[in-house]
């Protein structure tokens, strides 16, 4: 706001405090010019985000209603028959189930284990705590697809180092990724290892919002470390728990890179999450079923959206708790 308009607004305010701010030709002209600049600033985002994020969200709905076998072939409208086919496909339901199991395996592990580590690493008394933070965060910055490929070799049943270690201590080797009963657990463990550091940094940031005075006061009152954690740290972390869970759970929907490079969804579809299912029908099939895959994608989008909504509701609840604490 410029000084001239501020003065004009002030003069206006003497007569009519509400109408004054919008009166006068200079004001509207300036405002129009300002709005022009504003939309000019937004233009790159409107164009790029519009084309590559908003348009695809809308277009998916149309594509889900057509029969379409390849990006360069014709689309024929078929109504909701793609949805009927997807919903009747046991492999789709299996991928929904695996996505959910994966989420239930990795999200609590990431959230709780990293909290424990963050509490330890946040203590100023721990030697080299900065170095540890760096080390535990390191896998986060590495390329997921490359880690996935390397992990295939690390878990290799015959020459991989993990099975070599198992045999060295006299145990039987395990075909971690080749066995459909263990593959999902193996990928989950690697996923937790890979993205653990992000959640750990979230928790450290949350812990640092608690002032050290609170701890000092508790110590003077004779509270032990466990009591301090139970009665001071945990209640103060509660609102953060909800936000951190939201971010971590939404993150579990982005496991495509690791799944495709480590297992490709196999063996026998045992690690096929919804994104791999979509990918398989759209890009890996000999005759691509793009309409069918789009219907699955729309359902997946709705699924993510609903999970997000439930959690946003949780965030509002967290905000309320925070407001009450203040």
């Amino acid at each position, binding site marked *: 706001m410029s000084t001239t308009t501020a003065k004009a607004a002030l003069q206006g305010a003497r007569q009519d405090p509400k109408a004054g701010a919008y009166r006068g030709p200079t004001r509207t002209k300036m405002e129009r010019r300002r709005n022009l600049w504003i939309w000019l600033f937004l233009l790159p985002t409107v164009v790029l985000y519009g084309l590559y994020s908003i348009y695809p969200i809308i277009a998916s709905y149309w594509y889900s209603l057509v029969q379409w076998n390849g990006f360069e072939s014709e689309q024929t409208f078929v109504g909701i028959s793609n949805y009927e086919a997807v919903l009747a496909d046991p492999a789709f339901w299996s991928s929904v189930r695996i996505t959910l199991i994966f989420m239930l395996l990795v999200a609590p592990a990431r959230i709780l284990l990293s909290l424990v580590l963050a509490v330890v690493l946040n203590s100023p008394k721990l030697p080299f705590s900065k170095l540890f933070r760096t080390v535990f965060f390191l896998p986060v910055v590495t390329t997921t697809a490359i880690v996935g490929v390397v992990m295939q070799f690390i878990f290799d049943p015959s020459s991989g180092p993990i099975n070599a270690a198992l045999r060295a201590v006299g145990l039987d080797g395990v075909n971690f990724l080749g066995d459909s009963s263990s593959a999902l657990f193996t990928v989950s463990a690697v996923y937790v290892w890979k993205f653990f550091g992000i959640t750990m940094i979230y928790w450290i940031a949350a812990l640092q919002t608690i002032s050290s005075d609170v701890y000092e006061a508790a110590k003077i009152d004779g509270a032990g470390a466990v009591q301090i954690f139970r009665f001071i740290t945990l209640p103060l972390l509660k609102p953060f728990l909800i936000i951190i869970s939201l971010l971590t759970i939404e993150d579990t929907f982005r496991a495509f890179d690791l799944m495709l490079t480590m297992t490709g969804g196999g063996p026998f579809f045992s690690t096929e999450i919804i*994104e791999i299912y979509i990918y398989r029908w759209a890009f890996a099939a000999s005759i691509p079923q793009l309409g069918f895959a789009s219907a699955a994608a729309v359902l997946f989008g709705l699924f993510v959206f609903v999970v997000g909504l439930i959690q946003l509701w949780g965030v509002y609840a967290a905000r309320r708790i925070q407001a009450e604490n203040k």
Partner: protein
Amino acid sequence: MSVLKEQSVGSGLHSRAGRMLRRSPWWIAFAFLAVSALLWVYPFIWMVAASLKDSMEIFSSGLNLMPKVFAWENYVRAWEDAGFGRYMLNTILITVWTVIIVVVRCALAGYVLGRYKFPGSRIVMGILVATLFIPTGYTIIPIVKLSLDLGLLNSLTGMVLALSGAANVSAILIYAGYFRQLPKELEEASIVDGAGFFRTFFTVMLPLTMPVTATVALLTFLGTWNSFFLPLVFSFSRPELRTLSVGMQAFVGENAVDWSGMAAAGVISIIPVVALFIFLQKFFVEGIAGAVKS
């Protein structure tokens, strides 16, 4: 506690012993963490070791990490024969351009959304927040179709545009949050000096955002360098456009037995991000922690 303190006044030796004793649980924690940390980075140590063993030794050496002879030719094979020199160049080009576009577009958008109320501002903000968590698997089919229609599929330009157009909402939110808390007097002073909207932004506001710009640039760099789904789909029919991550997947598909070449390719691909992280750690951590604080 207090007993130990009184003793420590007596002599220096006691004081040191006392402190060690009081801190001993932390040294136990330290020892435990040190072992875990070693196991934590073991996959990377293994990869580096494997990249230096010759193709026979890698299958026979078991748990022994140290190569007998350093087989540097693995790196030559990965760089030249497997095409990772080319993939590296592609990845650098895509990453640099995407970072530039994302920083410019998000700084501009974040500035107006964070500092101005205008007709439509709430709608724009609402749409951005509502689409914050859109997964790539949902948008990928229309993105490919659109790029095909625009003649941008199978090109690096197409990849850059798709990568800088999809997601990145969090960068706008980081900028908006930062601009919002800057004092109002800054703009007023600049307008008194006769600067217009654009000059105020460019000469007064933008220089103040360096810490945020560093964070956004780094996180975008990381996200783009490590991206896989989009580059994979965009380079199906043009192998020479592969990025490092896509190249790695293809390499293993074609040479399943060349473990040491695979490991060398992995080291080549990961070293730039790891080096960047170690030197600029502070910004990475701040950028990620920001999601919780706001």
